[in-house]
């Protein structure tokens, strides 16, 4: 502990012990504990206590009077736990009867403040920190704390109850670790007393008729198998699996969710021999007994398992597919398509779940679709994957939602009514549909997918969120549909689809709902980015009004839409697809867009469109856009001028990015400072032409970068620092060995920079010679600055000293106020 903090500590302890002083902020105490933990990592807690008697005084005071606030009590309990984690300190505290006084039956439990959940939580956390050595185990056994922890498992505060369960697992693991000493103890009877006590309690709870108790026991076991992977867990499961199995025989099955968590947790453990312990049978039995909604998560969990018998995987996958199979069955006249389940056992349960109520139906379908989506993206994805029926079912669900399906059965009719216009199911189905685009599907199904997507995009009933998902799914299907040898080209079907899509897109670009306009623009931007170079696509786009409408949205009242429109217009222009009748041969129209974007950059009141403009400009500069290369200097100068006044730090960041691209283009890539690379001859990097440096001064890029270096937003300053470092590296050999101050006006530049540092920005650097700039560049300690900026901005405020001072200062203010009152 550093001496400043040591000095402050007595005063702080006095404040904490004083019931009249309110510690207003819980987070201070949390930070204080964190600090003590860090200190204890390197120092002996015993020495710390001995060196700072104020700490012991605080603890004894609390023990004697308990007249401090509950939050301080909780703090003290946790603090003692941290101290006692080291065995010598534990012994020391034990001698003073302090531990028993705080954690024993006559301690915190008997205080009135025990009613406060924060105190109970502090007690548990204190014990949790403390339980790190064999002495702690004896203490726990002797003090009766374990029984209290059992009781706290049912605490009304969920945080306390959960922490109590965690603590039990912690103690059990500690006991077994100490007792087992590496070799597995096959006889549970030979386990340490503390462990036996806990296991007996869990076993008793498993036999209990009360569901909460069963849940508690299951939670303890789930955590145990999740955390502990020693051989003794196998013995534990061997002992407890019979009562767990008994739970499945009850009707209804108690604590289903916890039970499933336990089975999955056990199944994930590497220690057990599953075949011998009957886990697979138990999982299979559970899957067949649970309702479809309950079984879904278990089925997914089972399928995710690394080593799982194929039979069980098939069963679990069947459970996941069941609801979709029902949907297909209810809506197709033909006897179910091949590949998906036939009406086997369990399907009636699924049908019941689907028809029982709207919420049940929607919940089950959304869950199933989400699970299947997750599954498809996993390496454990079942093979063969029933792509065709799944796609058919998903399309059918979307049709049920938009009311366009003609169901063949009464169940289909009811589903139609239930799912009609259901946004949640639509969203889930569209997400899954997007994922399904990765598989290979027959052409007629792809056409069906396109048809249902068109219907969704076209329908006036589609909500903005559904439309967004539909756009995303459409993009994925276009990317993956019918891959031709020339991969990037659109298939003829996709082109036909686009022909129908553009009129819809036109309508969506005129939607009164800004979210819709926005997602339509984003979608369009993606389309152009992918296929803007393809002749068929260009023709289809050109024959629609989409480019004109997109351009008009640059004036949209909603800033997000303007930002997206900027992106779209930039992309259109990059690809020579600009809005007006003008073609690339008509430079006026192009120039118009450049000026429009410049106008947005300098006048738009919102940050998003301005940021978007800079992104477009940077891209244009990088790609050598015709308008930019026509007069790059003018372009960069105008942009930097606008950006330097911008209030949005991200815009300023983007401005620096643009400046960097400009510099890289002129001066080459930054040299790599990797120590392992073989030094290449420097000649590859072109030496900047002196005229270029003049240009930089004229732009004025130097001024912009220097100004940004002092930016109050750290990322901007960092970026400017990097930029200047790059510039310095590139100009090392540029001019003669002039020293800073040699140049006639470098002194005045220094003076201006100094004033800027002091907060007087606004005074321009004036016209400067490149030599002066380079001199300043070299005189600045950029590396030092980079190091400073790399630290988080609150690194000063985060120091423990500052924390202690703050806490004392808050109290001080309180005192002053108190005095005022008199």
């Amino acid at each position: 502990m550093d001496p400043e903090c040591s000095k402050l500590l007595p005063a702080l302890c006095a404040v904490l012990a004083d019931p009249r002083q309110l510690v207003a902020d819980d987070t201070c105490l949390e930070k204080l504990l964190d600090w003590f933990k860090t200190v204890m990592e390197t120092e002996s807690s015993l020495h710390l206590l001995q060196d700072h008697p104020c700490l012991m005084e605080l603890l004894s005071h609390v023990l004697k009077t308990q007249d401090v606030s509950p939050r301080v009590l909780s703090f003290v309990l946790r603090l003692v736990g941290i101290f006692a984690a080291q065995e010598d300190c534990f012994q020391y505290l034990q001698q003073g009867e302090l531990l028993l006084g705080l954690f024993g039956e006559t301690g915190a439990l008997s205080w009135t403040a025990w009613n406060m959940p924060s105190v109970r939580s502090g007690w548990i956390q204190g014990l949790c920190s403390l339980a790190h050595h064999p002495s702690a185990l004896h203490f726990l056994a002797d003090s009766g704390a374990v029984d209290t922890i059992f009781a706290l498992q049912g605490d009304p505060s969920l945080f306390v109850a959960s922490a109590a369960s965690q603590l039990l697992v912690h103690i059990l693991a500690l006991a077994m670790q100490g007792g087992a000493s590496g070799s597995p103890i096959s006889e549970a009877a030979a386990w340490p007393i503390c462990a036996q006590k806990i296991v007996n309690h869990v076993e008793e709870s498993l036999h209990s008729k009360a569901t909460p108790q069963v849940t508690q026991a299951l939670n303890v076991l789930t955590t145990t198998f999740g955390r502990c992977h020693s051989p003794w867990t196998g013995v534990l499961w061997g002992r407890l699996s019979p009562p767990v199995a008994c739970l499945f025989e009850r009707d209804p099955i108690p604590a289903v969710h916890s039970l499933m968590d336990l089975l999955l947790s056990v199944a994930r453990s590497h220690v057990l021999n599953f075949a011998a312990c009957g886990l697979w049978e138990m999982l299979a039995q559970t899957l067949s007994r649970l309702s479809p909604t309950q079984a879904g998560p278990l089925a997914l969990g089972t399928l995710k398992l690394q080593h799982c018998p194929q039979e069980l995987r098939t069963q679990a996958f069947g459970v996941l597919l069941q609801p979709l199979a029902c949907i297909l069955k209810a809506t197709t006249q033909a006897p179910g398509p091949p590949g998906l389940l036939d009406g086997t056992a369990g399907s009636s349960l699924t049908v019941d779940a689907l028809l029982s109520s709207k919420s049940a139906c929607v919940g089950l379908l959304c869950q199933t679709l989400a699970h299947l989506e997750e599954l498809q993206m996993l390496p454990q994805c079942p093979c063969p994957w029933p792509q065709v029926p799944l796609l058919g079912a998903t399309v059918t669900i979307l049709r049920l939602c938009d009311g366009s399906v003609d169901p063949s059965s009464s169940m289909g009719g009811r589903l139609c009514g239930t799912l009609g216009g259901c946004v949640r199911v639509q969203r889930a189905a569209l997400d899954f549909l997007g994922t399904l685009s990765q598989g290979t599907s027959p052409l007629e199904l792809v056409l069906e997918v396109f048809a249902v997507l068109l219907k969704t995009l076209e329908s006036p009933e589609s909500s903005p969120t559904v439309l967004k998902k539909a756009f995303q799914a459409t993009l994925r299907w276009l990317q993956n549909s019918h891959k031709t040898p020339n991969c990037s080209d659109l298939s003829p079907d996709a082109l036909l689809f686009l022909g129908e899509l553009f009129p819809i897109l036109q309508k969506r670009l005129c939607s009164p709902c800004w979210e819709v306009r926005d997602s339509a623009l984003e979608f369009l931007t993606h389309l152009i980015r992918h296929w803007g170079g393809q002749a068929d696509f260009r023709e289809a786009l050109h024959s629609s009004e989409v480019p004109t409408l997109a351009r008009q949205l640059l004036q949209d009242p909603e800033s997000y839409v303007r930002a997206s429109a900027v992106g779209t217009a930039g992309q259109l222009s990059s690809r020579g697809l600009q809005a007006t009748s003008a073609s690339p041969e008509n430079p006026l129209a192009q120039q118009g867009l450049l000026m429009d974007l410049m106008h947005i950059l300098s006048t738009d009141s919102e940050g998003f469109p301005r940021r978007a403009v800079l992104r477009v400009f940077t891209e244009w500069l990088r790609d050598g856009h015709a308008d930019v290369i026509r007069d790059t200097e003018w372009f960069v100068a105008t942009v930097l001028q606008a950006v330097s006044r911008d209030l949005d730090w991200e815009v300023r960041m983007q401005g620096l990015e643009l400046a960097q691209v400009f510099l890289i283009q002129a001066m080459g890539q930054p040299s790599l400072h990797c120590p392992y690379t073989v030094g290449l001859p420097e000649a590859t990097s072109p030496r900047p032409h002196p005229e270029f440096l003049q240009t930089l001064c004229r732009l004025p890029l130097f001024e912009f970068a220097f100004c940004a270096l002092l930016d109050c937003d750290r990322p901007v300053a960092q970026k400017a620092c990097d930029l200047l470092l790059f510039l310095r590296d590139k100009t090392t050999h540029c001019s003669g060995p002039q020293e800073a101050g040699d140049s006639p006006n470098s002194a005045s530049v220094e003076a201006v920079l100094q004033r800027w540092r002091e907060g007087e920005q606004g005074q321009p650097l004036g016209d400067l010679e490149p030599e002066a700039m380079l001199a300043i560049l070299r005189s600045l300690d950029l590396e030092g600055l980079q190091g400073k900026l790399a630290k988080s901005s609150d690194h000063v405020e985060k120091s423990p000293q500052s924390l202690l001072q703050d806490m004392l200062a808050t109290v001080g203010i309180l005192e002053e106020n108190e005095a005022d009152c008199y």
Partner: protein
Amino acid sequence: MKLYCLSGHPTLPCNVLKFKSTTIMLDCGLDMTSTLNFLPLPLVQSPRLSNLPGWSLKDGNAFLDKELKECSGHVFVDSVPEFCLPETELIDLSTVDVILISNYHCMMALPYITEHTGFTGTVYATEPTMQIGRLLMEELVNFIERVPKAQSASLWKNKDIQRLLPSPLKDAVEVSTWRRCYTMQEVNSALSKIQLVGYSQKIELFGAVQVTPLSSGYALGSSNWIIQSHYEKVSYVSGSSLLTTHPQPMDQASLKNSDVLVLTGLTQIPTANPDGMVGEFCSNLALTVRNGGNVLVPCYPSGVIYDLLECLYQYIDSAGLSNIPFYFISPVANSSLEFSQIFAEWLCHNKQSKVYLPEPPFPHAELIQTNKLKHYPSIHGDFSNDFRQPCVVFTGHPSLRFGDVVHFMELWGKSSLNTVIFTEPDFSYLEALAPYQPLAMKCIYCPIDTRLNFIQVSKLLKEVQPLHVVCPEQYTQPPPAQSHRMDLMIDCQPPAMSYRRAEVLALPFKRRYEKIEIMPELADSLVPMEIKPGISLATVSAVLHTKDNKHVLQPPPRPTQPPSSKKRKRVSEDVPDCKVLKPLLSGSIPVEQFVQTLEKHGFSDIKVEDTAKGHIVLLQEAETLIQIEEDSTHIICDNDETLRVRLRDLVLRFLQKF
């Protein structure tokens, strides 16, 4: 209680309810879909329409070619449009006591009823309903009268000829009863019979029933009606909405505890959500105008147009349409826009509160002020000077058969840049467009119907729990085009009773109680006796006096005194004689105790048999039977009056007298 169903149109109902001694007509909607069979009435001479070929029969017989014209495979009657009236033969309409109007769309047949059937009663409606209803009628009369048509076709209506015609003329029903439009004079006369009412106002009808209008949330001044007596309640729900648009919200709570709920006027487009449709409307409007085209919106002069203008008010700036003129053309455009601003008390809370700022409740005032919205009585006059394209025109009639809309259809139909957007759900847009085919202009159908959909109805019924629901037959089955949509019908328990045109329904509930008042002096003379805790009985002798459907029990006249004069004598003759009262008995006879009592009084050899209704006590020695049933006791003995009296007295011991 009976319901006479005079209209088969579910949203333009006309029913007559006979309840107690009153005859109440519920709405009188006019089915105007019949006009779709007629050729449009062009405001400006249309060579295309006047040169349509006449229609001839398959065998080449062309005797109908003056009356029927053919256009793109459809046949139309070339005559003044006619309307399908409610049934007038099912019930003598001169016996109707009152007509209750629920909204301005449901009163368009009023002049036919009040002026041509001998109707002498009163019509009840709210003020906005009456005023806007007047506007709608005025517009209708104006549209038809300003294009006089010499020809009136009637030959085709001959049943034998009609059979030979192509559909839909062949299938048109009751064509013989179709009538031409009424005159303004008839409108004025009909409207003069309206008595204005306010929401929740209780109106006594002859002391027999009380009727009350409730806000229905659908249109300015639209109402549902409660018709109730002391012990019965009938609710009439017509054209209601739960959406937040401009009118006052719907009063649902007052519909609770109805014996019968008559449910009409649900949405005509149950699958279209009004919000989505408004979005569609705006998108298509903007798309057309941005491409340099014009937009035509066929609409009524009141109702949804207020909401559309409000949406556009918020949308036009964002869509960059600030420079596009919006024209509202109707003979009543000005009145409609102004009326909407003055009925503050009938508006939703938000709009009401604007009045206190003070600001006009509807933003179309600002649109007019800033010249973005201009209104004209017709295309003639000022409009032709101001007309600028591209533009958006709101005008009637939504059937596209008459009104200024006909002109715009002719004018803009040829260009694919233009769009007609249908927002009114009353007419099939395809049928409406039929006489304009072939048509190059784009057609967008986004019907905005804010009335209740089936999900809302099912919630409403769960909430208000009527004993019986009565509705048009269309609501008891899914729509024919979507026969699998079992959710698009009314689902309630017990199943709803359905009606169709010209049907009489006996409503399934019987009146069991009537309220009678007791005069204070008579009440004073009563001596109640408590027969059970909390229940007291008293016998009453009184004269029942009934007048104006009110019943009063008055004290009986004093015993007749010798007549002192001729006049007195005549009075006393009217008074019924008071008979000597026998005491009434109450209570039940516990058989076991009764048998014990009999034994105590010397009867022996007693046998008790249980019967379906009670018990038979057999006194075998005395050859006597005592039948004890729930509401009677018989002593059957053979001519032994003494025994009977003895037994009777024993029976009476167990009963109370009063």
